[in-house]
């Protein structure tokens, strides 16, 4: 099967592989330590782990977009900020 039209590259393949691993890790976490009770965080919304992962990923996407477009520093700095942001989301949201 010829998949050249999908224009795969190593960085994008690693990115999607990372997302799949993240979802697998979340599934494993839910299996080992189930947490079915939602939590009210600083947004005033009842969120579970999946919601917090979604918010962490979505926010990280915007941080990367903003960083790529307007920040003078390399993109990995934006990635580090995203990691901090994700940790804050999991702790406080």
């Amino acid at each position: 099967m010829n998949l050249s039209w999908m224009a795969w590259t190593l960085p994008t393949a690693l990115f999607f592989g990372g997302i799949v691993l993240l979802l697998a890790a979340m599934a494993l976490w839910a299996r080992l330590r189930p947490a079915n009770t939602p939590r009210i965080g600083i947004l005033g919304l009842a969120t579970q782990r999946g919601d917090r992962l979604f918010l962490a990923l979505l926010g990280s996407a915007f941080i990367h977009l903003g960083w790529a477009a307007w920040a003078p520093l390399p993109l990995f700095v934006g990635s580090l900020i995203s990691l901090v942001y994700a940790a804050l989301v999991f702790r406080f949201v």
Partner: protein
Amino acid sequence: MKPVNHKAWWLVLPVLVLVAFSALIPLMTVVNYSFQDTFGNNQFFWAGTVWYEQVLNSERFWNALGRSFAFSTIILAIEIPLGVFIALHMPRKGIGVAFCLVLMSLPLLIPWNVVGTIWQVFGRVDIGLLGGALAAIGVDYNYVQDPVDAWATLIIMDVWHWTSLVVLLAYAGLAAIPEDYYRAANIDGASGWAVFRYIQLPKIMHVLTIAVLLRFMDSFMIYTEPFVVTGGGPGNSTTFLSIDLVQIAIGQFDLGPAAAMSIIYFFIILTFSWVFYAVMTRDPDAGQQVVENSEGEAGK
């Protein structure tokens, strides 16, 4: 404890396969394109984040985004209250129910390009009924040359096409309210506004959530109707994000910038969908319930 039967997952498999082919694989491909440049013939060159930088720093993108937001805001502000108002005044019993439901469904059955063609002809000053009638009463209306007229035409067209969806959803929500609520309100001497504010509106809030979500996403992605009616003009006055995207991707064959724009577009839609969903489905008692659950579990 009852054993969990995981066989049901197999029933979900066809949907997963369908979603993979219709959404995930195209999305992954667009992500791949957004980091590369191509001159066709399946030859790609790594470009990094240059397309994202270019799109996010272009005035053209922000103008198109602003127009899309303005359009969605205006049609939501009209269609949601109007849809609820019509649903409240539709008959609940008798032959009028079927008549109204069929009447309301008719605009929804018409394909987008046909709706665009209908309104393109309808609004023309030389042969259209609307354009001709307005010209006859002395209104200077020309959607081909005047941006305000073009916007008004598109908004009225969308309201005509899609308010029915809000009506049908709101009507379904209203029909599901048990009669006991109205009897209790009647005994208490509640006014019509009080019945709407404290019984009907809370009861239809969930279907309105769906209506707002569907209409926002649909109007934010609108392409066919404005393309057929105005083609994005006059000038760029009705060039929404979707029209601009197609111009870049197909008109100019700039797949890299178009893919980057698509990804940004996707994130915006995803964010707004989540915000709408989170705000409108927020249970005011959720905090209390969570606290009670936690206390219950702690006591075990």
